[in-house]
């Protein structure tokens, strides 16, 4: 897998924020150790490679918060979130402590490493913890801008860093926690997407138009809290919703959008997301996307199957 610009930005942001804020402390679970050396050098005594004991790393991060510091805990998603969930729930959630969990290896980013290194349900796990906010920055600038705005807010933040960035650029002022970004105006279909599949959705729009659809594309970098106002305004206009995401239906963007629009009549809803099964096939990340239909062709096929054009 090629180097991720978002992960590189993570290291750069830690360096810059850490140099200005002596409360920032970074713990890693034996990953990104070399990338974070500039932070470690610039901020001596505030970078620790805790090793292969993720639950304790999470508890330690909460302990740092307890004495007034701002912790960042970082490693591969299944180990930081699924293995350590009770530590997240109790040590951060129950204690109402603030901190930042930053993952790589979400969904099947580590495709060839197999299911032990996959994580398809992170938003579902953390989305029900009171006070927790969930971010899925799909570009380097989004991570940098979002992190700087929320890292000290006093409750838990999750940043899911995808391996692949989308190619869109935004003004920093347009990247606001909890606010969706309207990427393409349309009239009869709202495509709500997040992470790298903004690229997939944009790639599908021309062929969708050829089939008679005029898609409105809304990009989400904040899963919780969701931008209810912008989503509702779009849906009430188009009356058709397609959610495209790399997460299982329940607890991800799909079920959250469905919950949001459940009272609206005469609405068509569908989701192109991950099914509740382990991705046991090998191959590249792109191979995995093709297998589950998270491609331009998959979106086109899905729309034609699910939505009638009266």
């Amino acid at each position: 897998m090629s180097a991720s610009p978002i992960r590189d930005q993570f290291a750069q942001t830690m360096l810059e924020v850490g140099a200005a804020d002596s409360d920032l402390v970074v713990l890693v679970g034996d990953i990104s150790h070399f990338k974070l050396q500039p932070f470690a050098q610039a901020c001596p005594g505030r970078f620790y490679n805790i090793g292969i004991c993720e639950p304790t790393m999470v508890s330690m991060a909460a302990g740092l918060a307890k004495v007034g510091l701002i912790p960042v805990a970082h490693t591969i998603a299944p180990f930081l979130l699924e293995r350590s969930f009770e530590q997240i729930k109790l040590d951060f959630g129950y204690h109402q402590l603030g901190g930042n969990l930053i993952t790589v290896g979400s969904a099947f980013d580590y495709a060839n490493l197999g299911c032990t290194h996959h994580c398809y349900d992170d938003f579902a796990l953390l989305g029900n913890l009171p006070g927790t906010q969930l971010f899925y920055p799909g570009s380097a600038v989004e991570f940098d801008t979002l992190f700087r705005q929320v890292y000290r807010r006093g409750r838990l933040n999750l940043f899911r860093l995808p391996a692949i960035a989308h190619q869109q650029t935004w003004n920093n002022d347009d990247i606001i926690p909890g606010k969706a970004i309207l990427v393409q105006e349309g009239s009869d279909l709202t495509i709500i997407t997040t992470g790298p599949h903004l690229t997939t959705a944009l790639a599908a729009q021309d062929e969708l138009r050829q089939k008679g659809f005029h898609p409105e594309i809304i990009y989400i970098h904040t899963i919780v809290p969701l931008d209810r106002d912008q989503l509702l305004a779009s849906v009430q206009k188009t009356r058709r919703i397609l959610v495209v995401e790399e997460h299982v239906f329940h607890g991800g963007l799909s079920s959250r959008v469905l919950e949001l629009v459940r009272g609206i009549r005469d609405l068509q809803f569908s989701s192109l997301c991950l099914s509740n099964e382990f991705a046991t096939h090998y191959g590249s990340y792109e191979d995995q996307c093709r297998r589950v239909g998270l491609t331009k062709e998959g979106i086109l096929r899905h729309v034609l199957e699910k939505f009638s054009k009266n």
Partner: protein
Amino acid sequence: MGDRGEVILGNRVVPPKEEWQIHNAYRRRIVDMVCEGKDGHIPSAFSIIDIIAVLYQYYLKFDAKNPAWEKRDYFILSKGHGCLALYVVLKEHGFLTENDLNGFCQPDGILGEHPDATKVPGVELSTGSLGHGFSMAVGMALGLRIQNRNNRLFVLVGDGECHEGTVWEAANVANNLQLGNLCVVVDWNGSAAQLMPRDDLPAKWKAFGWETHVIDGHSVTELRQALDRIAFKSVGTPTVIVAKTIKGKGVPLLEGHGTWHHRIPKPDEYKIIMEALA
């Protein structure tokens, strides 16, 4: 030890009998709370009451009027189900009131069967799920060192709690980071050995690189001697005191392992318990 067997504590001379009277008064109050609240773990609290009483009486720096005082020492009861012992000691030192104790397990009370740090003044961490408090304390100890603060941390863990893998993750990390501002006391009352008889806790802690002392956890003198030996350096080997204790200590009816772990005394049993603690 003085000429007449009294315990000499700094400038204070405390006859052993007086110390026991105080601790037995705590035990009686615990029994009353359980009977009134109709819930609670009496033997677990009796196992650790002497340890907590000594820590608050002679070691911890605190300000009950300002529980968040930044120069305080931290006490973390990682085995949260022993919290009745903590509650009565916190009341003794002014964090809680008699009314608070009377509200144990009541709908409008702040005290439950596990301590809630978001509600209870003087409780640092909300514990109950075993293996969390110690790991958080390791993060706190590291954080205090980062901030160049010399507060000390005392963590009380159960021997059953030492079944949890996170205890040993944390022990390993604390030694590797040389968190010399951290002291763990293990309540070695034999609960763990009920399930896993190979239970050489001192050897385990030594193997993890900790300065290890084994004492009688009901002896004020031995507790004091062990605690006095700790250097509490910002960078140094962390210390564990493996305290041999008796679950239900002080009341023969309750001592040992069995049905009393989570049981409310009946009136006739209450009478027997109170007579033993008189």
